[in-house]
């Protein structure tokens, strides 16, 4: 069996190891993120949620996933 290469990315400040051929959609699916309740940034650029399955991830990518919480 061919070994799948892993790459390291950062999601919300935490280092995660994902498959090299993975895309943003798969990475989010694994985290069970409810897409309709969040916004996503890739390397400080806002991502259109409709296009996430077309976005390839690269080594050292920084993803931020935010949502609304209680605040004043």
């Amino acid at each position, binding site marked *: 069996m061919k070994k799948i290469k892993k790459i390291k990315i950062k999601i919300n400040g935490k280092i995660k190891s994902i498959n090299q051929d993975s895309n943003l959609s798969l990475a989010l699916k694994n985290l069970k993120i409810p897409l309709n309740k969040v916004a996503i940034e890739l390397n400080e650029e806002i991502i259109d949620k409709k296009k996430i399955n077309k976005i390839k991830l690269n080594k050292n990518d920084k993803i*931020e996933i935010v949502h*609304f919480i209680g605040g*004043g």
Partner: protein
Amino acid sequence: MKKDSLIIANKKFNSRLIVGTGKYKNMSECAKAIKLSGAEIVTVAVRRVNISDKNKPLLMDYIDPKKITYLPNTAGCFNSKEALRTLRLAREIGGWKLVKLEVLGDKKNLFPDMIETLKSTEVLAKEGFKVMVYCNDDPLMAKRLENSGADAIMPLAAPIGSGLGIQNKINIQIIRKQTKLPLIIDAGLGQASDATIAMELGCDGVLVNTAIAKAKKPFEMALAFKNAVIAGRQSFKSGRIDKILMGNPSSPSKGII
């Protein structure tokens, strides 16, 4: 009686009380207090999703954004760049355009950095946001915000979370006189009567968080603020009597035995 709605960026609201969703013991306490307050707009913060605890309750599960207007806020931002990033993300979550801009300048007193606030207001208005702006109680700055495209002026009563009540009534009245934009007192209220005073000064609404969330009985305080805002508004609309320095008897002086 004619309906007296609060209109912000062409949207009508029946309640003139806006409440924050922070500092509550838990989400259900927050949701219940909001319901009792009658508020139709709540401020919310934009923060990272907790990716290690997926079962953490979500605000949207407790407060339905279809029924209550979420007002994303930039609390915790100390410059224009952070504030713009936060609100652009907030818009992306689900199309929110009505936002509250709050750019702080000092970690201790939490006063707004008005230069960064002004810069951010201009950019946001150009990007199509409807911006409600937290600001100092400075009439000149309020005017500049208005000219920069703000949709509501939100001067502080006193430092955020201080509970001191309105410190500068004169400035609030001057701002009221000079602007037709919604004027909403934001921050620093401590008790229900502070909200009444704000409304009697002619403000269009008040925003309260700590005074309700940290009261010994938040549910009762939520109700008290609801009633206080209604009372203050009615009082303002009723046209108060002139102040005089002498006594003026309430009973006729004729026919005294």
